[in-house]
């Protein structure tokens, strides 16, 4: 089934295959998953930057179809029935398809092809285990355009080259990541519906100018996808101060807002950093899980709390939280619950972050024999691929979610999308609202 798929580096391919005559269609494909968290924050930053690169260096004509563009801050399930079912350790998970329907995509292609037929199509994906949405989309495209090369870019071909070569149906796999950090995201690609936020790359030397540009277009929410976000505290503060000097607040009624949703480690957080973040307008901070010898690094978390106090940085529980990773090979439920309660003490709000190993990483290699190699969809953290190693059943993780959701419900005005609708969740929520622990006098 493997059919002359080309493996090339990104720049090598672009250099030999792109010219000003090219019409390039970029696609952010749909996602097939058991749960789709952080639905607000999916943005195909790599494609948006690639578009700028193609326009600047080759004068290509570029269009984008984003299956996952949130509408009213939501990405909905495509249908009210599951796409498929998957069994993990005897536990059945429904896989749902998220994003625009294929019928809408076909309609869009029908309308577009009349005047604009692509000469190349590029797809990307945030993770390798979302390959099914990519393969389905490529198969659909191959049914329509048998003569147009389809290029696959992103984590999937980088991390799972062999799988992608066999199952993705792409003609070209880009095996590396293009360093386009100094190219701004091309938001002009969103012709009719502008996204509500702009993803930035902290590594870029020009992210401040890019944020300024997008702010001028009416986009005032910014997020960094970098991990870690603060590699060098001094550098981070200088970058933020440079942005602050632009004084965007004085230009419109809008306030620029930053959301720290990933890569924020407590040990890198100091009072100086807190002050800088407060100054530039970070309105949500979610701290990564940091442990020392299996225990929560409480010193680091305390330092975070002290820093907030020191600079009088008041964030509400729904704006501030700590992640607790679950799904690791050495997970211990008691330990997790302890860490959850500890973090509640610190932040008042906790988010469980299911974890999955990066293919070819140390941990991945260590347990390689126990992990499925040809079913990479099972690497989704929501399916708890290490449950076979740590002995914790998926339903026990579910109960953990319910517990955290219930705790969050008490203190947060808007909870994350945990398990609404389940009986346990509803019962606990109701009990908390009624404060049933209070003994009537």
């Amino acid at each position: 089934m493997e059919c002359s798929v080309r493996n090339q580096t990104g720049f090598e391919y672009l250099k030999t295959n792109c010219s000003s005559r090219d019409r390039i269609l970029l696609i952010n494909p749909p996602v097939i998953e058991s749960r789709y968290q952080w639905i607000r924050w999916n943005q195909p930053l790599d494609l948006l930057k690639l578009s700028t690169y193609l326009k600047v260096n080759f004068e290509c004509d570029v269009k984008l179809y984003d299956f996952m563009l949130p509408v009213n801050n939501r990405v909905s399930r495509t249908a009210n029935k599951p796409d498929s079912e998957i069994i993990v350790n005897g536990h059945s998970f429904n896989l749902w398809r998220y994003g625009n329907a294929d019928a809408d995509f076909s309609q869009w292609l029908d309308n577009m092809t009349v005047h604009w037929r692509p000469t190349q199509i590029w797809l990307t994906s945030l993770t390798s285990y979302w390959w099914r949405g990519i393969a389905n989309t490529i198969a659909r495209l191959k049914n329509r355009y048998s003569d147009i090369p389809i290029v696959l870019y992103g984590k999937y071909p980088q991390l799972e080259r062999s799988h992608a070569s066999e199952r993705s149906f792409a003609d070209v796999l880009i095996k590396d990541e293009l360093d386009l950090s100094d190219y701004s995201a091309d938001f002009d690609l969103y012709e009719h519906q502008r996204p509500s936020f702009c993803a930035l790359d902290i590594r870029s030397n020009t992210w401040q100018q890019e944020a300024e540009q997008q702010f001028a277009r009416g986009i005032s929410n910014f997020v960094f996808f970098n991990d870690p976000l603060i590699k060098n505290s001094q550098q981070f503060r200088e970058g933020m101060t440079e942005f602050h000097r632009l004084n965007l607040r004085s230009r419109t009624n809008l306030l620029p807002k930053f959301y720290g949703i990933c890569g924020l480690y407590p040990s890198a957080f100091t009072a100086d950093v807190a002050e800088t973040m407060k100054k530039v307008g970070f309105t949500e901070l979610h701290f990564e899980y940091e442990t020392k010898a299996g225990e929560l690094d409480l010193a680091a978390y305390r330092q975070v709390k002290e820093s907030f106090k020191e600079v009088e940085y008041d964030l509400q529980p729904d704006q501030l939280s700590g992640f607790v990773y679950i799904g690791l090979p050495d997970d211990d439920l008691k330990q997790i619950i302890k860490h959850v309660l500890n973090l509640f003490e610190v932040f008042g709000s906790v988010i469980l972050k299911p974890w999955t190993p990066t293919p070819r990483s140390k941990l991945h290699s260590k347990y390689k024999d126990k992990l499925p190699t040809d079913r990479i969809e099972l690497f989704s953290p929501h399916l708890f691929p290490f449950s076979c190693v740590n002995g914790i059943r998926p339903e026990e993780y579910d109960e953990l979610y319910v517990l955290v959701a219930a705790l969050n419900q008490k203190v947060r005005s808007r909870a994350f999308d945990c398990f609404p609708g389940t009986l346990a969740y509803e019962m606990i929520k109701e009990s908390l609202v009624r404060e049933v622990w209070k003994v009537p006098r």
Partner: protein
Amino acid sequence: MPKHKDNDGPISLQSGGVDPSILRELSGIYKPFFQAFKELVSNAYDANANSVRIRLAADYESIDIVDDGIGMTLFEFRADFTRLGGSLHKIQRGPIRKGRLRIGSKGIGFLAVARYCSAMEIVSTTLRTHRGKIDIQGKTGTLDFSRLFEVPIPPRLLHNRFRITSLTVVRGKTRRRLRPSEFELLPNGRVRITNRKRPATSCKVELRYALDCSTLEFKAIIDYDYLLSLENKMDLSQLSDFCTLSVNGFENDDERVKQEYTRISLKGLKQFVVRDLKAPRKPGRVRNIESESGLDQFVWNLSRCIPIKYDPRNLIKLEAGGSNLESPQIQAIDSVIFRGPDQQDLQLLRPLWSGNKHDKDWNTADDIILPIDINQSGLRATGYILGHREALFPAEFRGIAVRVRNVQIGAPSFFGSEQALTGLSRSLLSQITGEVNVFEGLDAIDALNPGRDSFYEENGHYKILRRQIVGDGETVSGILGAVINQMLEKMQILSTVESLLLKANNYRAALVNLSMAINHYGTNATDGASLREFFSSTQRVNGLSHREDYDSLPGPRLLGYRVMAQHQMEGDHLIDFARKSVYLNLAHERWNKRIFVLGQHYEVVAKMGSSNDPLSEIDTTERKVYVNWSHPLRQQMGDVAFLKSAVVWKLSYHACGGDIESMMDLALNLLTFDGV
């Protein structure tokens, strides 16, 4: 003769001896209110007005109409306006100025609004000079002629305006015209004959005069309440006064000098009129005029039936009406402005259907438009009939309007042809609009009923018009019949092509679904191996491939239309109704017969196999999938289900190497695959 008074105050006129019950009957001809009010605009048109301003009072109690037409002398008012049949003699004078043919003819216009208000006030002035004749009987030394005018003019107003053009003494058969030196005009409205031979007692004096009206303005008030209540009075001859009249003179520096105008005010609008005008718009989505507010309805209906201009932006004017609607023979008042309570001035333009509101991209290309051009036995008319692809809104546009002298006669209709039509043809009437402008004929007294809202059906011209438009048999023929036939034909071809495209879409969707199902299961780690193995193996076929290909495209003709296959064209298909051709864009995705299967493209070929031939065959060497399109199962299953079943069962059979259970599982998975 009117009663005269010596002072300048108003005096009363008589109704001319017509039985009041007849007045009452005639006043009921014009309904509803806008039909009656349009008569006042028609009067302005007849008076050569360029501009008309209509204003409804804030309290809805009165409405004014002011025009810049030629105005009236008080003598004309007396003779033409208030007398039944008064305008009859005008017809004989032919066209009035500007080439306009006169609208009014029956001489009952002043009664039009009688039922809708308590009184009508008319103020008018003109630049014309009135010329008249007065006969004076008896002994005549000094003659007091001012008392003998048909209308009351205070003697003081005659000064410098009244001039004797001739004075003739008639005695028996002898007539002698006096020289200017033989008589003298006195300032008190008298004339003194100064020659020595005074006329004998029994002689008659004929006085011809000219009265300069350019500095006179009259004001008349017709009391409709009084007039229409006469029916109940016992002694009609004593109670016949209904109109008071007064005359004013201008000084030379008055701004009204050298102006001509007529201002008519309807005072005391009846409660039912006020209620109708104040009616609010119906709640919810509104498509028809009858659901609009009372005021909007009045304005729209009035705009439709008065002689005003079209909206110049109207597409239909350009494409459908063309020169018919722009004919110089169609005269119109340049500007009619309406102002309602709390409203800005609104320039009235004649509404013409120009696409339904929701259909912003409407143009006439998709519609059927046939011209009307009649020139027969003194009837000359042009226009068009338009058949749209869906029901017309507002519904008030449905039907064919007939306009005589640019005034719509009644509501648009289908000349009674509704009765002759049934089923679909009849329902198509809701999609038809049209207009006929009559330039000659159909304006005779025996053609139009007094209220000008319908024709007398026995009229010869009307018969010609009806025959030309709807025919005269039991079925509808004529131009309307032709439009209906073309609409039916168009609907049939549209529906056939739509069904053809839908079928192709479904066929293509089934192919893509089949491809997606194979790709989905073929890439599964566990159960995809058999499929992958099958498509990697060498499978040759020798049965169906030799059969004749089934051509899924329609034949060279479709309902009489030529079918033309194109590979490069704008859009996915085009129906050229004029050339009776259907163009299909075969480059469109729906005609694509190739599917993508696990990394390879296969062509799906429908074959004309026999019932003994297999349902399908898959040739992995040639990369072709043959489907037995003539198989009897296809008739029972339908195209899409048959296509999928035929391929899936064959594929499952081969892929599972004869393992029935695996084959069933795979086939059912593939058949029930539902890509979103």
